[in-house]
């Protein structure tokens, strides 16, 4: 009886061999070849038991942090780069911040006293608190919409382009606030904004139209990160901070009251 070669057995095990039926028939009659196949199987099974360390849930983020500073900017055509929706949103965010700073500055401006002279930092924080709060509110709305959306019966494709564009618009704005939070040493806020940014990027990079299954998969990815809950916690914290940074009541005859009204 002609035995099956080791090479043929390995190919058979890999489902790469031709003439499988002949090999099967031979293996039934030849304990020697059957044993050899068993040995090959044992070795290859043992291969799977070698441990591979789990790099951790945040591994991708760590890799990004390590390589991001080493990535050169891609040279897109200047008008393409300028009109990327995200860039435009960032311009909007910066403009909004300036207007808001001006507004809050006006509101908190009263007769200059020793205490108020030291309030520049408080005013800045208040601007940020209000702006970030609004940003989180808009983000929360997107997350809620996605969490609650359901495909209609028999619907084959769901158009999420509007939500996707809004998420895209928030990405750059989010980055701006995250960097500011980092700069201010507010790591808890920076971490939540970092996680939010990843979710917003995920939404922004989804196709315009998705199947119900794809949509469910996106919902699960968002849900698994628990971002909605984290955003709410930070929003609550911001409300507390907003109260704390509210200017103290002005004296009775002050013009501040009038200005506040306007």
């Amino acid at each position: 009886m002609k035995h099956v070669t080791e090479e043929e057995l390995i190919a058979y095990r890999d489902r790469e061999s031709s003439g499988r039926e002949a090999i099967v028939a031979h293996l039934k009659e030849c304990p020697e070849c059957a044993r050899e196949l068993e040995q090959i199987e044992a070795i290859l099974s043992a291969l799977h038991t070698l441990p591979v360390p789990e790099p951790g849930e945040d591994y991708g983020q760590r890799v990004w942090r390590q390589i991001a500073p080493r990535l050169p900017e891609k040279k897109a055509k200047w008008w393409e780069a300028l009109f990327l929706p995200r860039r435009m949103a960032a311009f909007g965010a910066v403009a909004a911040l300036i207007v808001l700073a001006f507004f809050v500055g006006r509101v908190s401006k009263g007769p200059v006293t020793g205490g108020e002279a030291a309030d520049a930092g408080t005013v800045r924080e208040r601007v940020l608190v209000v702006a970030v709060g609004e940003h989180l509110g808009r983000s929360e709305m997107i997350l809620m919409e996605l969490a609650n959306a359901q495909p209609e019966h028999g619907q084959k494709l769901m158009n999420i382009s509007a939500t996707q564009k809004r998420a895209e618009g928030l990405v750059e704005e989010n980055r701006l606030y995250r960097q500011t939070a980092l700069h201010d040493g507010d790591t808890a806020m920076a971490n939540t904004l970092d996680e939010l940014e990843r979710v917003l990027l995920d939404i922004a990079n989804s196709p315009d139209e998705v199947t119900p299954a794809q949509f469910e998969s996106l919902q699960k990815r968002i849900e698994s990160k628990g971002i909605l809950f984290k955003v709410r916690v930070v929003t609550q914290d911001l409300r507390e901070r907003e109260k704390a940074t509210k200017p103290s009541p002005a004296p009775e005859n002050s013009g501040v009251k009038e200005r506040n009204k306007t």
Partner: protein
Amino acid sequence: MREGIDTADAEATSDNVAVQRTLAGDRDAYRVLVERHSRNVFRMAYRMTGNGHDAEEIVQEAFLRAYQKLGKFAGEANFGTWVYRIAANYAIDRLRQQNSEKSRRQMPSSPDEDGLEIDPLSNARDPAPSPERLAGSAQLAAKMKEALEALTPAERTAVVMRHWEGCPIEEIAVVLKSNANATKNTVFRAVAKLRKALEPFAATNQAARAMGTES
């Protein structure tokens, strides 16, 4: 199953959008790709190199190279497969470099088919330990690790991609810059060498028992 396919499909589409955005100058879009595929690349790199430090360097280098070559990607496969291939290529280059440095430091000996390594089985410090001494998963794992390290880079790549990662032969052939038949031979050689190095276990199917993998 259908859900799995849909998820993979959604990811591939999302990957392509992120690639297009990155090419349009939106560097942050690349972050999605890095975060999504790093762990998978790490697992393969670890299996190829056997140590975490090298694996991490391979992951970083693979994503840097992929970023530089992104214009050439043009949706030819899916991004995950593409960056995986770049990482495998870099890992094999790295293994070759390390092996040639090692062999320069050692006594000269005859090169094998790749022209790079000494006979892998002669590298084994203890070629025929008794099954009793090696019984137990830790010992087997150590012996398996040693046997894998003794393979040539091409063989190790072939066996990792084929039997660990379940890649098709054609995919491995691309990484090895070879054809399908030669790749099959490389896989065969690798398995034969592993089998020979681990004979004390294979003889009685002890490998699977010791590792608790026997059904």
